[in-house]
């Protein structure tokens, strides 16, 4: 573990003295070979299966995928917030490394990890009703981390909480500090969640479906708000969503997840314009678009995602892929780079299809570099 002093908190103020993140070189977040698996009675479920990614400060990475693709588990694995082994889960295992501003988080004991949560990395959870404590007033839920982690006094914390509530666009923050979560609408609750997440000025925000279940008008406001906060604080953000429309407008880069893996990642505009992996293409074709004429039918993806407890060899998308060939069913395609940061995992990528060059040739030369 590096610079031990940096992680030590001062006992008097309980204020985390974190190494100066802004001066640290390299990306804000580096994830390498991250795997999270659950042992269940049906076998080992590999929810996150070897994910590597990097994120620079101030940038947004969108992670899209269907239910069960592992996108939420990836966010939780990065944060280190994994569910305990429950009734039908015999155990959780995580391997690989998560480096935040150059510091490996995977080896940290819980006490030190708690000092990173909130102040350095924060998470906006999907369901604001269950993520907020229903019997504690909104004010105390926001000031809790301010007092505990930033060492603020009662009145300072309250002042800050008021400012936070205004900054997330809640009118009459004084009154809402005294509200309980059930007294707020869904959009307001999600704003409170965001206020809690940004209270201690995190450098990395993991937003897990921050707008799912909200109306489009509220969704646009929440996403605008996150973008504003991000610009003000040069905060890096991982935006997890199933809605391709949300990442299209908001993420610098987008990663598509399928069955626990990243199958394609590129600059958002590039990915949407030239998907190389057939699954990304199918996902894009499956959404009805406002730009299409009325009555235009979306193109469904046949079949279902694979059972993560019993994976067949070969590419995980092969059973549903219209272009699948023999090789796809035999060998798992690695995630390779096709220049300018466009990564994909496919033996026969789409745009290169015409040239009839198997991607492996390209991949073997570039992927190793």
């Amino acid at each position, binding site marked *: 573990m590096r610079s031990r002093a940096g992680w030590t908190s001062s006992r008097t103020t309980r204020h985390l003295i974190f190494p100066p993140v802004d001066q640290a070189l390299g990306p804000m977040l580096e994830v390498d070979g991250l795997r999270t698996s659950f042992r269940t009675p049906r076998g080992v479920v590999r929810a996150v299966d070897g994910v590597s990614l990097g994120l620079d400060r101030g940038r947004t990475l969108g992670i899209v995928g*269907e*239910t069960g693709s592992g996108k939420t588990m990836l966010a939780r694995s990065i944060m280190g917030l994994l569910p305990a082994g429950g009734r039908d889960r015999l155990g959780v295992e995580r391997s690989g490394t998560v480096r935040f501003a150059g510091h490996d988080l995977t080896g940290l004991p819980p006490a030190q990890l708690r000092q990173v949560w909130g102040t350095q990395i924060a998470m906006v959870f999907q369901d604001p009703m269950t993520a907020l404590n229903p019997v504690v007033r909104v004010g105390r839920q926001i000031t809790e981390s301010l007092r505990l982690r930033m060492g603020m006094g009662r009145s300072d914390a309250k002042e800050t909480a008021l400012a936070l509530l205004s900054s997330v*666009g809640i*009118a009459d923050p004084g009154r809402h500090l005294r509200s309980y979560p059930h007294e707020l*609408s*869904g*959009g*307001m609750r999600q704003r409170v969640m965001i206020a809690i997440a940004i209270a201690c000025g995190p450098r990395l925000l993991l937003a897990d479906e921050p707008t799912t279940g909200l*109306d*489009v*008008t*509220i*969704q*646009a*406001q929440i*996403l*605008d708000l996150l*973008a*504003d906060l991000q610009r003000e604080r040069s905060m890096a953000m991982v935006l997890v969503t*199933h*809605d*391709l*429309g*949300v990442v*299209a*407008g*908001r993420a610098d880069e987008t990663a598509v997840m399928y069955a626990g893996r990243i199958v394609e990642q590129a600059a*958002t*505009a590039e990915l*949407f*314009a030239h998907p190389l992996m057939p699954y990304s293409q*199918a*996902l*894009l074709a*499956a*959404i*009805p*678009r*406002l*730009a*299409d*004429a*009325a*009555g*235009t*039918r*979306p*193109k*469904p*993806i046949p079949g*279902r995602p694979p059972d993560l407890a019993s994976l067949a060899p070969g590419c995980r998308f092969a059973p549903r892929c219209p272009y699948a060939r023999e090789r796809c069913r035999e060998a798992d395609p690695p995630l390779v780079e096709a220049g300018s940061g466009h990564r994909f995992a496919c033996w026969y990528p789409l745009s290169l299809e015409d040239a009839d060059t198997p991607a492996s040739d390209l991949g073997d030369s570039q992927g190793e570099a």
Partner: protein
Amino acid sequence: MEGSQPAGTPNQPVGTPTGIRNQPAGTGTEGGNGKEILRVEHLVVEYGPRRRRVHAVSDVSFLMAEGETLGLVGESGSGKSTTGRAIAHVQPPTSGHVYFDGIDLGGLSTGRLRRARTQIQMVFQDPISSLNPRRRVRDIVAEPLAIWNTGTAAQRAQRAAAMLEAVGIDPVTVGQRRPQQLSGGQCQRVSIARALMLEPRLLVCDEPVSALDVSVQAQILNLLADLKEQHGFTMLFIAHDLAVVKSISDRVAVMYLGKLCELAPADTLYDAPLHPYTAALISSVPSPDPERGPRTPLAGRTAGMAGTGPVAAALANEVPSPLHPPSGCRFRTRCAYAATLCAREEPPMRQLAPDHFVACHFPLAH
């Protein structure tokens, strides 16, 4: 469960003894000739005690033609689901009339209403909780026939199997499972099969795809479109997702706080909305085409402005409570173009172009 299966014990068989096909409901009107199948007049649905009266639907009127798909969109709390439930009389209207095939459903006796409702079926939002967890899929689908005592048990089973096949469920393997063993998409297919067993003429779909993943959502949308072609039913499609509604609807109605704002053919409504609320709603939808024009909020942002201009910026205000809706036009508190007239007088529904109705004092010019 309610709505798709009339409750209580069966009394009379519907249809001929051998089969299976239903008669048009009740009092001797013949469907097919008349173009209009549903007429909703001054529909009002209110909940709760007088002090805290929720005005869920306030004076909504519209027509539906036989065979069309009408999309009904709005934010949560706009009353779109309540409207659908009131049409099927799952939730009896407080006042106003629902004429189905010329018959006022509110004027029917309980028995006749039950009979009439075999013609109006519902598909609900949550595919899993709308199916009885303790029954097998094949029994769930055969139940509407069992309730109406149609055919023998063997005939019912045969028809249920055929319908399951038609919605893409294997009646042999999946048919004997229970809902919890199915995926969300499979459950929604079963709900659709169940709703179609009595060969309804009107299918009310309340957010049928909003709980599903995009790939499955596309499957269900296409399934509904295919079944509609085969069976020729009329469909009221209620959803909050504007793109989904556009893909499936012939005409689209927009609701806000219990009122109908705008009603037009789908392409017209999306290309040239007349109501400021419709325009704001459309501009709020995040587009899955990153390079697409200035409609998306982001494009407005990169130009240095918050929101998309006056229309979307006004939507920053919260939706007023349906307990105390604003006077006059209900959208005025969030409308960029609101004037004093809007607070004083409620805008009537006007036809401003062929088949294009709007309730606004100052409709947008195009």
